[in-house]
């Protein structure tokens, strides 16, 4: 994050303010978490010329990127920002390490097991049993795999760890 000098011109908000506004932009495919929690927003630069937001795709073919850029712009326009530039960058490559703890908790409450370094979900997000089994390495979106709980028998999404 880049902070700029305090700016008292009401037309240019601080980057901290913009980060806070972006918390209201949810991921189009997992609406319980914000694009900030997901780690997709990498950088916010504010200066007299306007606001520049740098975003990065989770997966290179992530079909949600266009929607995310559009939703960010819509949200910032709601706060009367005019000159908004959204830049996509791929390096450094997105990693699940950028998912915030808040984001991980929200995922679990929503029924998606958060990513684990071990490469497998710790427990079933429904009943918390650790007796779980992989059904497929791929799931309903590029960022998820499909697992099943052997105790409550519910299938669930697991957020892939990359």
């Amino acid at each position: 994050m880049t902070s700029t000098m305090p700016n008292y011109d009401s037309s240019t908000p601080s980057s901290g303010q913009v980060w806070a506004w972006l918390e209201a932009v949810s991921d189009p495919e997992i609406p319980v978490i914000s694009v900030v929690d997901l780690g997709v927003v990498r950088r916010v630069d504010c200066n007299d010329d306007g606001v520049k937001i740098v975003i990065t795709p989770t997966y290179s073919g992530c079909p949600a990127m266009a929607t995310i850029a559009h939703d960010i712009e819509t949200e910032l326009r709601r706060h009367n920002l005019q000159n908004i530039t959204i830049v996509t960058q791929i390096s450094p490559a997105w990693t699940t390490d950028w998912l915030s703890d808040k984001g991980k908790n929200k995922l679990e409450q929503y029924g998606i097991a958060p990513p684990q370094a071990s490469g497998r979900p710790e427990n079933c997000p429904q009943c918390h049993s650790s007796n779980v089994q992989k059904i497929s390495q791929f799931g309903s979106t590029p960022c998820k795999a499909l697992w099943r709980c052997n105790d409550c028998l519910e299938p669930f999404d697991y957020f892939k760890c990359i």
Partner: protein
Amino acid sequence: MDHAFEFLVRQGDNVLVLGHRLSEWCGQGPVLEEDIALANIALDMIGQTQLWLSYAAEVEGANRTADDLAYLRDAWDFRNVLLVEQPNRDFAVTIMRQFLFDAYHVPYLHALESSKDQRVAEIASKCRKEAIYHLERSSSVIVALGDGTEESHKRMQAALERLWPYTGELFLSDETDDAVAESGLAPVLNDVKARWLQTVQSSLKDAYLQMPDNDFAQIGGKSGIRHSEHLGHMLSTMQVLQRSYPGAQW
């Protein structure tokens, strides 16, 4: 010939053509999970195509976009290896083709991460994360089916023998390969081959499949000189929208 452009188009075309082949399974997979998996891998590869062909278009500087390169070139201008344009046939051929490519893709992208061109290194680093995941899956399916039923074993062995002559092209250097290795843009192909062979030998052994000892190689894909007839048929489907409604946008 601009070797950098040629090299970038080769990278883009490999994943574009293979990604399109995989997408042909969408709605027709043997089970729902496989259908979803193949569609997801296709999506990753089309995303990777966007990265490579966008850069190729910039390097070319002829006012073409990634979409122009994908949808408005004819078969002879495609620079993918012959392996990836081979038709899906049955699930055994599809998954064997994927495995043989993934086993090459991972070490090749790894080497590209040290490219002298920073943009190439960045793209490779993004793509490799996805390719590792693809290889994990294709190698485990190879083993499950090779060491599965009598029928699945027979089909996997047949798929391996059918596709084997198309693997040689991945590692046979031509003028472009030599030039980009020389300039530090890309690795020497022979160095990648050793790592490919290691992965292939070890997975085939676990799958109880017999590696063919024939090293005859079909070539002519990455140079564009002699694509198989399958590519033209594939492009006629892939490009139909832009050919019928030039400039159409979503």
